């Protein structure tokens, strides 16, 4: 095994990590503003993809190459589905249990409510889609059709190293979108509303910021990013409706590594988790694909227990 293989392994890890970073960004955003752990987040990313698959392709577990226009529609559909599902979770599961002006009736807030509610929502998504799509794995079309850019989908580097172009472009898109989202969340008026609500929902309400609306938007943005992450991730390998929960937990590991509430940290954390995963699989076998990031998460929680009092950006 030469250095060429290792370069590929690292690149694959980074590509996966960039995707994880997008999911982690949404998780961190919600955890930072709303002080809520978005338990259904990973399921939303995967469910969004399958909503697009059901709409554009149907229930057949075969990859159909989509023409350019349907490809665009597919991407938009998935991203919109992510946002919509996330908004539904916020509306029905999270807001009724929050201690914010315009939130639930319980003044103290009810963590048990949104924890169990988020898990229930994720489970419902998983299992309902599982009824419609019973196969173990689905090959999802690649709307960007990145392989076409270069002959054979591979880039030849000097020294006999070949890189899959897809992975390179996934890293570029993932990090690019992530950074744009991070910058605009930090700079914009919406970003300052987010931080206001994060610091003090009552105070923000007194300044005319609707905490309820800000919470909804945080979930919507998280859902958009999750949908995009799903589009980027899905064509990489056959996915099943059950992959969402573990994807979500891997993203949590990334968010914790970067510091909950830190958006830039989430992107970096994603890359680290992706690398750890790729190297663990490379060194110790494919069985560790999920085991390594999950174990990392448990260890992180034990060693560096996060407080829920994190700040955004």
């Amino acid at each position: 095994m030469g250095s060429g293989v290792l370069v590929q392994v690292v690149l694959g890890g980074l590509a996966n990590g960039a995707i994880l970073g997008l999911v982690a960004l949404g998780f961190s955003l919600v955890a930072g503003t709303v002080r809520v752990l978005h338990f259904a987040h990973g399921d939303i990313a995967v469910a969004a993809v399958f909503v697009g698959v059901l709409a554009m392709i149907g229930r057949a577990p075969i990859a159909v190459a989509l023409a350019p226009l349907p490809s665009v529609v597919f991407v938009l559909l998935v991203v919109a589905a992510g946002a919509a599902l996330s908004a539904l979770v916020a509306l029905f599961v999270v807001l009724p249990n929050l201690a914010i002006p315009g939130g639930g009736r319980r003044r103290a807030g009810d963590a048990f409510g949104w924890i169990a509610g988020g898990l229930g929502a994720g489970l419902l998504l998983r299992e309902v889609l599982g009824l419609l799509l019973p196969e173990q794995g689905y090959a999802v079309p690649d709307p960007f059709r990145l392989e076409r850019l270069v002959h054979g989908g591979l880039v030849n580097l000097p020294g006999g190293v070949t890189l899959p172009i897809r992975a390179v472009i996934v890293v570029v898109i993932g990090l690019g979108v992530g950074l744009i989202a991070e910058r605009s969340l930090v700079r914009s008026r919406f970003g300052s509303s987010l931080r206001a609500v994060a610091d003090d929902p009552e105070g923000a309400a007194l300044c005319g910021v609707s905490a309820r609306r800000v919470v909804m938007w945080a979930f919507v943005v998280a859902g958009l990013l999750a949908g995009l992450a799903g589009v980027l991730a899905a064509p990489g390998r056959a996915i099943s409706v059950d992959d969402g929960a573990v994807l979500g937990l891997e993203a949590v590991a990334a968010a914790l590594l970067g510091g909950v509430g830190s958006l830039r940290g989430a992107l970096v954390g994603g890359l680290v988790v992706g690398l750890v995963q790729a190297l663990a699989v490379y060194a110790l076998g494919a069985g560790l694909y999920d085991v390594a990031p999950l174990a990392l998460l448990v260890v992180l929680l034990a060693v560096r227990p996060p407080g829920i009092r994190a700040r955004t950006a």
Partner: protein
Amino acid sequence: MIDVAQALWLLVAALGLSLSVSYAGLPMLGQSAFIAVGGYGVALLGPGGVGLPLGVAAAAAVLIAALLGYFTAVGLSRLDGAYLALATWTLAWLVQRILLAYPGVFGGPEGLTRPVPAHLVSRSLGVETVLTTKINLVFAAGICVLVLLAFIRMGKGPGGLDLAVLRESPQLATSLGVAVAARRRAVFTMTAVLGAVSGVGSTVLLGIISPSDVSPLLSLQLFVAVLVGGAARWWGPVLGVALVSVLASVADRLGSVGDVSPERLRGVLTAILLLGVLALRGPLGRLGRTAGRVIQPTRSTLPVPERQVPTLEGPVELSATHVSISYASVPAVDDVSLVLRGGEVHALIGPNGSGKSTLLHVLAGDVVSGEIRVGGRSCRARGVRDRVLAGVVRTPQRSVVLSGLTPAMQVAVGARVGSPSRQAMLRHLFATPRSRVEAERVRAVVGAALRETGLLGVSDTDPVRLTVGEQQLLQVARAIATGASVFLFDEPSAGMTDGERQTLRAVVRGLATAGAAVFIVEHDMRFVGAAADFVSVLDAGRIIASGTPVRVRDDPLVREVYLGSSLDGGAGGTHVEADRP
């Protein structure tokens, strides 16, 4: 019959989970992991695996689960609610993925199969029993009944009280001397043990264990089952497991009719049940709320030990020397030295933000630079609980409303600090004579503390209905019940009516007369003048004056920083607004 036995084993796991979730309020979502340890443990170690006798293998599997549960609890002890849920949920997925990652050991998705019925052999006794379904069912039912009885008994005793206050407010539990971390470890370990027992039982029953039997979905099903019953009611898990079992058979029926996967249908129904239970939790919770059946305070004064009558100059109960604490390099308490004497009410006054509450926190056990001596012994860098056991108790500034516990029960938690009995939980479980004496003592102490604070009339009221002043008096009563020798009261008179202030003054004077040292943060100078023997004034973390109320009131520096120099001599009626964080 197999279905019934299986449901009973599920109930064992649910009962174990309810200990963490309902009784201790820990959102534990990884019970399937411990079931897996039990099930795979017995399959790997027992006949067909390593080949240990079935009983030994079962015991070993449960022991491994207990150790894992204990160390998980230690590892995750610093996590708060939502992150604990996250960590245990991750554990459920991690265990399932590990099972799938090593098919050589765990048999992959097909799992491990073992001969049925299993044989229970004892060479030393020369007995061989065939574990038929019927015998397995009897085992399961027996364990369920034992656990249920233990839970019902526990709910009425000191253990139930500890867990209830832990569930409502861990901080308050610590401040009343409950060993929060140890209780959590014990509860978590017990949950793991019962999970493993359930795994062992159903694996022996079915002769097969596979990753889909211990999927995270099972964790959620058990969580729903426990949630159905709400907080701390033994029949909750019974009802919940019955519901989950019915749903499972409904799913199987529907699956065979509609040609869809019954596993998926189970998942959908579980999700709907979970979301439904959450929506209906309010009404369900009210359904089973019963109050006041645990502790009935006795009205006799007899068994309360009398405190010593103080001498003229009381003994030094607590002394602080050069105590400092700073937050982000801003000193909050700056080189404070003071002495609290038995028989004396010592008031602490000072502007908002001068560090009064922080000083109380430090005296009550927060880590500190400087020296604190309690009853002549140094207490450097000890925790809150050790300070409580040494006889120093603090009431928080904002009253902690424990909505689930009647005033009498809340005071009873405090009363247990003075308990000489170790392992009170176990003693109570087996109703030893000593536990009865202890229960008698607790009732008497509770009665006395409630009477002193004038709360006897509301001892069984829903605490949410108490007035702000009554809440404050209740905090004082909880502290009194601990039998402490040093009381640190953080602005107890905030929000009190005049009548309640009178009561508070009498209580405070009464404690001093009985020999205790009382340190009280107070803004109302009239109250200070009437109740305190000694006053210290804190400004910017430093004590700028101390002495008798009259002397302090006339001190020019104090008048400048606190009382306001425009104030004319004897009025002293300043009531600075209570500081709220």
